[in-house]
């Protein structure tokens, strides 16, 4: 009797299975496919059904996260402190915070590495020596196999610069499909004259397909050290380097808006979804412009404008419990960076970092530290999109010389 019941059950299950297999993927295959999807699709597909939500959610025994860490977020670090770079995700898996050094411990000289830039899932790290850099490493931090980083040895290291010149920053440029990269190194000269200190910015480009860099080029005279650099292709093969003086742009915009800005204006240049973005804000308003091509001309068009007040109000609701200590305080909103793929800008209020989604206006706290920030200091910030497949082909070492550097 029991045997008959059993066999019936088996038969019924088989029938069921064959009926369902007309419409559904078995779980183990589904997981494999979902783990190969880009982040944005997986977020959208949380809506498909309860089963899919369980597979695609942040936590839980069935979550796909353990298969493939497709995440995107940013690295941040407080300036002037010797702390290490922290990673914070914005989506998905919001609880996935960690220290950059966890990911770089397999690299040579990893204790002396400092994050200089990130681009398309790759990081540019500089190896410090005597307040300067002797070599740089480009790596994909989410693949720690041996083959996934390259070292650039800078011959006649940066420490041999003339005494009045020093290294300012470096910018990494890579394409999603090509293993080639370019690094732009920026230097600054000090000159003393009757008006005080004058600075001149120079740059040189290290390129993996040319090997050596030959020229050091002078940037236009009036670029101040407060610059934003962005790489953007307008139909051309390789990104352009643009450097814009912050104050100058501010005044141009003030003029264009026919509006007088009071207080301290903060601005930011960046690239999001392949378009150059420019944000600027004071304690009253936040404006975002994009650079578009119109009739062969490049023009800045207003993309988004909003009052800062609701943002600051939300911040106060989250972090200020007493009304009284608060009335005198002026909050500034500091734009930190644009997300390369989403319609999101990162903002800092006090020492908290928020992601602000432009089209829906939703403000989410994503990272940060406690405490007030009366001086309006900004986090050092690099937004980062994980590309698990991003690679430079093989482990290689480049020996690149810097060009003649006599001022």
């Amino acid at each position, binding site marked *: 009797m029991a045997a008959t019941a059993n066999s019936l059950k088996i038969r019924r299950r088989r029938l069921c299975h064959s009926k369902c297999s007309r419409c*559904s993927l078995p779980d183990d295959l589904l997981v494999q496919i979902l783990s190969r999807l880009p982040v*944005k699709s997986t977020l959208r597909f949380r809506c*498909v059904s309860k089963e899919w939500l369980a597979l695609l959610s942040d936590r839980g025994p069935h979550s796909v996260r353990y298969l493939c860490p497709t995440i995107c977020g940013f690295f941040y670090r407080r300036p002037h402190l010797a702390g290490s770079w922290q990673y914070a995700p914005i989506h998905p898996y919001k609880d996935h915070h960690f220290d950059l050094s966890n990911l770089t411990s397999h690299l040579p000289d990893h204790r002396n590495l400092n994050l200089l830039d990130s681009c398309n899932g790759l990081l540019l790290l500089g190896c410090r020596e005597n307040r300067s850099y002797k070599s740089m490493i480009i790596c994909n931090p989410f693949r720690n196999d041996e083959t996934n980083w390259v070292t650039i040895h800078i011959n006649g290291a940066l420490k041999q610069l003339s005494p009045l010149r020093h290294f300012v920053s470096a910018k990494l440029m890579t394409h999603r499909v090509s293993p080639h990269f370019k690094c732009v190194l920026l230097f600054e000269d000090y000159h003393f004259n009757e008006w005080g200190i004058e600075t001149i910015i120079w740059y040189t480009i290290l390129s993996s397909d040319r090997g050596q860099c030959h020229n050091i080029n002078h940037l236009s005279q009036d670029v101040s050290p407060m610059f934003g650099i962005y790489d953007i292709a307008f139909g051309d093969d390789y990104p352009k380097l643009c450097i814009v003086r912050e104050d100058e742009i501010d005044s141009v915009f003030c003029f264009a808006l026919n509006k007088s800005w009071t207080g301290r204006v903060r601005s930011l240049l960046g690239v999001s979804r392949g378009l150059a973005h420019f944000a600027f804000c004071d304690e009253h308003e936040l404006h975002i412009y994009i650079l578009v091509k119109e009739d062969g001309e490049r023009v800045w068009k207003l993309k988004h404008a909003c009052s800062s007040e609701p943002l600051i109000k939300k911040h106060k609701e989250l972090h200020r419990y007493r009304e009284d200590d608060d009335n005198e305080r002026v909050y500034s909103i500091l734009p930190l960076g644009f997300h390369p793929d989403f319609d999101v800008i990162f903002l800092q209020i006090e020492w908290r970092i928020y992601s602000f989604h432009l089209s829906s206006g939703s403000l989410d706290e994503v990272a940060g530290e406690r405490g007030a920030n009366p001086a309006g200091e900004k986090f050092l910030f690099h937004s980062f999109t994980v590309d698990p497949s991003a690679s430079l082909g093989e482990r290689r070492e480049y020996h690149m010389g810097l060009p003649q550097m006599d001022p």
Partner: protein
Amino acid sequence: MSTESKEILVGESSQAKPEKKTIVLMASDGDEFVVDVDDITNQSEMIRNLISDMGGTDGLQVPLLNVTAPVLAKLLELFNVSNKNDDDEEVTQKVKELMEAELNMMIDVLGAANYIEATSFFDLSCKVLADKFKGMSVEEVREFLNIECDFTEEELQQIHAENAWAFD
């Protein structure tokens, strides 16, 4: 249909290359497929390991309990395409065509490839499906895989709100 494809395949491999070593794969319903050893070990890790464990291929019969004859025939056909071409383009195209024509067959083939550990083919097929899904809206996915939405309207709205960025 199953017997037909079996005969073609068996005929092909046993007549065209009689000097080559072959093994027999047995589908779940007992149908036998004679395949070239090099061709199959090239694709399937499981069979490669099995052969090295057994120390030879003489009279080797591999029962594949999870794989039915039509599925196995399809899988071997795709392996053939993959073995003949150095790049993946041709076989990717074939997998795509199969997905558009007979999704369930493709899913069964995928399961079989997973079962016999045909890693590179499995990867490629998953990628084809993922590429298909990538640009789809939620409704399109539900329709494509015939999934029923078991959320209430409020639940949907909440998930939607939490993941607003993914929908623009």
